[in-house]
């Protein structure tokens, strides 16, 4: 059993609004990541997956809960407390153009974190920059050192972002839709580099995506967490969650993913309404109930909690924990 390098317990994040109830971006989320492990976090926009990612990457303060990085517990993100700790979790942004300061060359972008790490001698820095660029497949490195971000393609920029993250010897990468803005033909190359880095450095990876097929592809042997309206509604090993979803929402997400094979018809499960969830909701009841075709009275009156179903596979759904499988009902409906 490998050691836990990142642990989030009961994390919540609220945004106060003037004269309106606060928006709960993340509600009581638990997450534990081992070194070398991959956890995929999936959900729609507004599900809180990106907010969670920025919290565990240490760049967004949270309101409740604790975050522990390599065993150091932080009750809130504080610049002094987390000196050096924040570096061990690196965020990979969705838009590689926005993630690089247009005023600096690739060489400088990599030099800054190396300097901050205490590597000052020009020779050492040059050497490290070359290593970093080669390890993300930007070869020959000298071709890229003096280039500005706008001179690179999206895929190349994302490689620079990865190299920059690598410069501070992180233990965890939080990849927030890291390939959704990259051309399809190069996505697998970027993902391949991430996987290689994971093997080489034992990195834990939190892979945030809205695309279930991509989550399955990347976190195949890892865990998958499904978020809805700021809470985890299902989690377990990736294959279990995607092949045998326990929550109707997970099943809908899966059914909505289009398949490259033209003979495969899309799944049948569609939500009854396209309304996005109300994030200010604090009353009792399942927050997915308004969109759920299988909601019963209980779903409206009480909030389901995340409970273990089989082994590591947990779900927050009354129908699942009551043992009355909605999946069977859906079979009936379809046939």
């Amino acid at each position: 059993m490998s050691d836990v390098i990142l642990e989030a317990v009961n994390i919540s994040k609220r945004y106060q609004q003037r004269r309106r109830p606060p928006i709960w971006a993340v509600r009581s989320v638990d997450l534990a990541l081992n070194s070398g492990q991959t956890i995929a976090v999936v959900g729609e926009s507004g599900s809180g997956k990106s907010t969670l990612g920025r919290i565990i990457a240490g760049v967004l303060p949270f309101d409740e809960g604790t975050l522990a990085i390599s065993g150091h517990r932080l009750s809130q993100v504080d610049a002094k407390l987390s000196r050096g700790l924040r570096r061990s979790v690196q965020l990979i942004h969705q838009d590689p153009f926005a993630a690089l300061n247009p005023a600096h060359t690739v060489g400088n972008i990599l030099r800054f974190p190396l300097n901050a790490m205490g590597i000052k001698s020009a020779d050492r820095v040059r050497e490290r920059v070359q290593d970093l660029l080669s390890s993300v497949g930007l070869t020959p490195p000298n071709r890229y050192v003096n280039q500005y971000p706008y001179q690179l393609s999206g895929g190349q920029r994302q490689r620079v972002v990865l190299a920059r993250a690598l410069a501070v010897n992180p233990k965890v990468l939080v990849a927030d839709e890291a390939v959704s803005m990259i051309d399809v033909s190069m996505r697998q190359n970027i993902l391949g580099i991430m996987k290689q880095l994971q093997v080489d450095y034992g990195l834990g990876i939190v892979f945030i995506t809205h695309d279930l097929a991509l989550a399955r592809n990347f976190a195949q042997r890892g865990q998958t967490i499904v978020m809805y309206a700021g809470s985890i509604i299902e989690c377990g090993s990736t294959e279990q969650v995607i092949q045998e979803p326990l929550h109707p929402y997970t099943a809908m997400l899966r059914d909505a993913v289009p398949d490259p094979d033209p003979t495969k018809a899309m799944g049948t499960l569609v939500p009854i309404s396209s309304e996005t969830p109300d994030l200010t909701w604090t009353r009792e009841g399942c927050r997915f109930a308004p969109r759920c075709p299988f909601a019963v009275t209980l779903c409206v009156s009480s909030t389901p909690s995340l409970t273990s179903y089989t082994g590591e596979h947990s779900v927050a759904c009354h129908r699942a924990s009551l043992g009355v499988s909605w999946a069977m009902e859906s079979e009936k409906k379809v046939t």
Partner: protein
Amino acid sequence: MTTTILQVENLVVEFKVNQDRVRAVDDVSLELRAGELVGLVGESGSGKSTLAYAMMNLLPRQGRLVSGKIALATVGDISRWSEPDMSRVRGNRISMVFQATQSTFNPIRTLESQFKLLFRAHGINVQEGLIKARRLLQRTQLDPQRILTSYPHQLSGGMRQRVGIVFAMVLEPDVILLDEPTTALDVLSQRVVLDLIRDLRSQTDAAMLFITHDFSVVSNLSQRIGVMYAGKLVELAPTERLYRFPQHPYTALLTRAVPSISQKHTELVGIPGQPPHLSDLPPGCRFSPRCPYVQERCRERTPPWSKISADQGVACFRWSELGEELANV
């Protein structure tokens, strides 16, 4: 045999970038038939959207249609039409759905007043038009009253996209161009929009061109798919054929780079290298620097368009010999 509604022939579009001229669309031919949905797949810079804008005669200032023909069965070649003439056919003969519909509506007018403008522009009785719009909105599972009284920003992305489709369809055009209509949407909203397009397709004789960077989005929706690379159409075939038996290496690699939710897990591979810059194209076949099957001639000459059958063609020297191999990538 169904009738051809739109014929694009040898279309060339150039853009002025600094002092250079680059060919964003290079010698593309395509025909659309009644009741058919054709997918057009390509990555950024492949020229797929430019092709659609050129077909609408909506190219930005720096763009110019250099040569070629865009023939609508009903009105003839529109490629050289003036703006006033074009405004008579846009919307009611050929219409377009955009990627970010929220920015294609006038932000300070209600949708009802925008519908009214559309009907007036085409000399259609406003009341009759609105009745039709309401009916279509209902079909998209939207509350017509609420939609019509709303301003664009008051609707969610998925709702706006559906309204955009209603806008493009309400005058019953012959051709509907859908430019990445689901790219800005969440999975569930995308699903709803795809279902809507499928539903409407079966109800209309219009030909649809569905442009996307994501092969899986159109694979289940289209009769035929065209693949573009660096301004060129590299392959065109019936969807299932294209997926099962790709003739162009790029098609094969691209369709295999997309993960599937249903299939047994396979290690996916990306395509090495970068798509070329249009201002710095390699000689010969544009895919040759990235192609695992490249030969000397590919780097020297541009492969011609080989017509395999009435609705299938490919631009690769080696298509006949590689067929077997590509099917098993």
